[in-house]
């Protein structure tokens, strides 16, 4: 399959706008589930308002949240796909810029020192583009995640040591969720990275926070930890918007990698209740959109 860069550019424009407007079904179901299980009256009002907002956004064809976030594009390349890597990155960037200027969307991207906004959602190394590979034949997938700042501002890394054990990891996750409180726009998906190098650990936490609800860590120990920590954080009482209640997190997701004998790194990254993402899949038959 030969990838057409004009189609990639169009899709990357479309993906940003789609992601901002329509929540994935698993996230909608997640809010409904927390609403049904919520025992706190104030939290019920908060969750119902979130449900109302989802339908208002769809009815008015509007963005769910004002925060257009930091644009993240995750590319997965299957087998037998011909492409020019640099042209692919340029097409993604162009699509992101066109969504921002043509829709128009708020550009939330500034230079980190001058704080200057180019009003394109683009800049040095932004959008954030990651590239990975998969076994599927003649297939390329691009997932777009607008990452809101309320949740991103609550990102944590601890280079724990082997003597801290898994309990040190668990305690750090609990501490992180407590210190974030209502600032992350809970209920959240709590992404936890365990092991690897320091930067792998942070990247795994982000991947975990943006994974679909209902998915499980492929590692058995990781999956067990997900269940244990999901139950634990929902006993903290932070609740939706930090105003108290049962529904602090949709889930805790864990991603892990083998690490050094002397390391025990743990990272936490959270995704807000507007857990937005959109996906485009390119095959020889054309482009299809989903979550």
């Amino acid at each position: 399959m030969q990838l057409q860069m004009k189609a990639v550019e169009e899709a990357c424009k479309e993906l940003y706008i789609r992601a901002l407007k329509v929540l994935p079904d698993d996230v909608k179901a997640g809010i409904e589930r927390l609403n049904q299980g919520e025992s706190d009256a104030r939290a019920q009002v908060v969750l119902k308002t979130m449900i109302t907002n989802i339908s208002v956004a769809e009815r008015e064809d509007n963005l769910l949240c004002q925060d257009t976030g930091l644009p993240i594009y995750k590319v997965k390349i299957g087998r037998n796909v011909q492409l020019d890597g640099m042209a692919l990155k340029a097409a993604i960037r162009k699509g992101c810029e066109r969504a921002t200027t043509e829709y128009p969307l708020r550009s939330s991207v500034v230079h980190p020192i001058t704080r200057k906004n180019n009003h394109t959602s683009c800049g040095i190394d932004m959008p954030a583009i990651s590239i990975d590979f998969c076994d599927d034949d003649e297939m390329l997938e691009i997932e777009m995640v607008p990452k809101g700042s309320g949740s991103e501002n609550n990102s944590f890394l601890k280079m724990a040591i082997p003597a801290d054990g898994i309990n040190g990891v668990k305690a750090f996750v609990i501490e992180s969720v407590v210190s974030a409180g209502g600032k992350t726009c809970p209920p959240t998906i709590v992404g936890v990275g365990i092991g690897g190098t320091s930067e792998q650990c942070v990247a795994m936490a982000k991947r975990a926070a943006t994974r679909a609800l209902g998915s499980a860590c492929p590692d058995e120990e990781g999956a067990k930890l997900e269940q244990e920590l999901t139950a634990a954080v929902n006993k903290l009482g932070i609740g939706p918007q930090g105003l108290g209640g049962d529904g602090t997190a949709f889930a805790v997701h864990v991603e892990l990698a083998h690490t050094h004998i002397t390391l025990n790194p743990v990272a936490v990254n959270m995704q807000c209740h507007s857990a937005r993402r959109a996906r485009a899949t390119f095959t020889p038959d054309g482009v299809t959109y989903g979550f």
Partner: protein
Amino acid sequence: MAHYNLPTPVSEADIRKLRVNDTVTLQNTLFGIRDATQIHMFDKGRKTRFDLNGHAVIHTAPNVRKVPVSEEFPAGYQPICIGTTTSDRMERFTRPLMTENGVRMIVGKGGMREGSASAFQEIGGVYLAIIGGTAALETTWIEQIEDVDMDDLNPESLWRFKIKDFGPLLVAMDSHGGSIYQEVKGEVARNKEAVLKSLGIAS
């Protein structure tokens, strides 16, 4: 738990009536303000031409479309999606907003800390919680972008919105020292001990 319909601007007496868990619907005018706006106002000495006395500000940076100035769009901006950002980052600006500009109400999400609570108590102010991430809904409560100041900071300009039935908003911090966030923080600290224990962790 009373509900108040509050046309802006308000007086100190209006604010002193409000207690945590009351709800408020705002009418007339609301000002949009954010990190950069307040950094320029209070760290760089810029003055706004807007009179914020007795008014409400919302922590926001909206999605807007630039359009020709008309009766419908007097500031040359059409609102697209206007929502709320996390208030905590702007904690240190609450007191100067009140003492230098006379602001009485802050609309935001996630809550503010002790410094804001004491400013609300001493000067007469409230924090009105809106549900973060529900911008599509909030946008339907905004009729028009009436005016804009410090627009070189766009989208973090100082915006003047014409509003209708903006709410219900929850009084989450009042002028009598009440704060739902402080209450929840205390409960969470107690719950945390039990949670750590259930995970087999000695605290």
